């Protein structure tokens, strides 16, 4: 495993961000069975907006630098510009056809190759991305970097002297207060913060900032681990979800329809069910 890279002044913060379709129901490429992202209006994944905000707040409190990284098609630049407008210092986009069609493991290896070249104290990932909804990337990356992870964080403080993070996180039966030494990876929840909205001027200025674009050959590493080829999982087949046989579809007079429904429910002895609790 790599040597852990910890900086000594302020916090080096990396936020992993993803551009996602603005509409929840996107189409599928019939050849590769992957989601068609090109030409679909996109936004910065809402959980990652929270991640960028938290990165900036940590920098405001403890000093340091916030870098956002995304892997995606060149149009994902818009997501990086959005993060720069909020106040991130540096934006990197990993973009190459080699990276396309990646599952979470392949995405983690791609981000890993970049992050290994950098200094970092805290890595922030979103709770999940709204188009694939796995939330797997954070834990994958923490393992590949061999650093501790704290997922579903609601509040985070840093002890700069002992160089550790103290965080409140969601647990199945409440909240846990957890600490871990730097460097650490955390994932967001929506109670972590209320993200700022950049002003028009900030949005305009962000467009002038330089964004580093990294191709596969520049990234290096084991190219066989990237993209569709490097993905252990793949969509084999798509099918229509099976329909249940509807018993009745009532159209027309609402009073009559309701009467028929209520009778049917009464016959099945089902209108007086009570909650199990």
């Amino acid at each position, binding site marked *: 495993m790599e040597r852990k890279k910890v900086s000594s002044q302020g916090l080096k913060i990396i936020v992993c961000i993803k551009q996602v379709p603005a509409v*929840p129901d996107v189409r599928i490429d019939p050849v590769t*069975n992957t989601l068609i992202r090109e030409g679909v209006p996109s936004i910065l994944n809402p959980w990652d907006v929270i991640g960028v905000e938290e990165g900036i707040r940590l920098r405001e409190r403890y000093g340091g630098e916030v870098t956002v990284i995304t892997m995606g098609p060149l149009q994902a630049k818009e997501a990086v510009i959005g993060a720069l407008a909020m106040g991130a210092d540096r934006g990197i986009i990993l973009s190459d056809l080699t990276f396309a069609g990646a599952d979470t493991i392949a995405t983690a290896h791609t981000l890993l190759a970049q992050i290994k070249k950098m200094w970092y104290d805290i890595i922030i990932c979103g709770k999940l991305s709204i188009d694939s909804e796995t939330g797997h990337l954070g834990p994958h990356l923490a393992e590949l970097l061999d650093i*501790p992870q704290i997922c579903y964080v609601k509040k985070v403080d840093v002890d700069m002297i002992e160089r550790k993070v103290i965080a409140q996180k969601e647990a199945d039966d409440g909240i846990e207060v957890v600490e871990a030494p730097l460097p650490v990876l955390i994932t967001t929840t929506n109670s972590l913060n209320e993200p700022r909205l950049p002003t028009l001027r900030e949005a305009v200025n962000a467009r002038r900032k330089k964004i580093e674009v990294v191709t596969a050959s520049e990234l290096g590493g084991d190219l066989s681990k990237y993209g569709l080829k490097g993905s252990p999982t793949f969509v084999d087949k798509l099918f229509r979800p099976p329909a249940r046989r509807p018993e009745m579809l*009532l159209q027309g007079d609402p009073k009559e329809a*309701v009467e028929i429904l209520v009778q049917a429910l009464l016959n099945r002895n089902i209108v007086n*069910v009570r*909650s199990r609790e």
Partner: protein
Amino acid sequence: MVSKTEIGGAEESASYKGVWVFAEQKDGNLRGVGLELLGVGRRLADRLGEELVAVLLGCGIEELAKDLVAYGADKIILAEHELLGRYTTETYMNVLAELVYKYKPSVLLMGGTLNGRELAPRLAARLSTGITADCTDFDIDKDGHLLQIKPFSKLMAKIKCRTKPQMATAKPNAFKRLKPDWSRKATVIREEVKVSPNETRTRVIEVVKTTNSIYGNVEEADAIVAGGRGLGSKENFKLIHDLADLLGATVAGTRSVVDRGWLPASQQVGQSGKMVTPRLYIAVGISGATYHTVGMQKSEVIVAINKDVKAPIFQIATYGIVGDLFEILPIFMDRLKKEYQEGVDIEQPSEQKPSNPY
């Protein structure tokens, strides 16, 4: 380290055998999702002609093995250590990884609880294998590979994994447990595990238990009234609460509704919300996107109210009413009130029922 193996290709792949279910326990109690996974795991193991193994980690939890046998396991791998008494991602992952290296299971299923969602993906990265989150069904193809089934856009996808073990998670309630058979016999293998305190770099300093929300637990509800974007506004959503109160039902909604802040995330039903299996599910102003229906289609009776006759929800509804919800709901509620007033053997809503938050 186990190297990456092409499915059906490399010889090593063939040496991976058996279906494993991680049986998560908390404070000495088994989580229900482990028993549910044993139910579907049984079917997969039988199709493969291989063993169904439950893996149980903890401290002083040997007793729980009996339940795992009754719910379908052929074999239990039990690892006890005082450092496994309380869940920590790194220690649990290290122990599970060692067990996988040693026994080489072909399939590894884990529950999508909060802990499971931290543990499973980290373990997959350690094992250099793939993982599919929140599957709603599983099957075995003709070559003996696991088909991991979950919604993908408007369709359902069969996902395969080129590497072993083939890992997947499923949410609570996605599968049914088998009827327990207390006469079943199984072997219990006790694993001596070496665990040291500094393996876990994260340390829990405090646990603050929170009480359940006033909304009630959708995963355990017998009756659910769910609202969708068709309600139009948070104010209108009160209609859903009123109907639920009348029926003694729990309130739920779609992701659109949660995104708009009309309901807390705890009440979201579907792929990225909760899986529910009530006796009665009333879907009001819900279109019936696959991502929603995977979470509620196992309900006993589904009632749908929607003004669009083409809405996909009508394909899975037991009873559908095509019409304007603002017209239908008041009539429906009046009719129910009449029923409850006249009904002799129908009790009034009980007191513990969550109160209307409005």
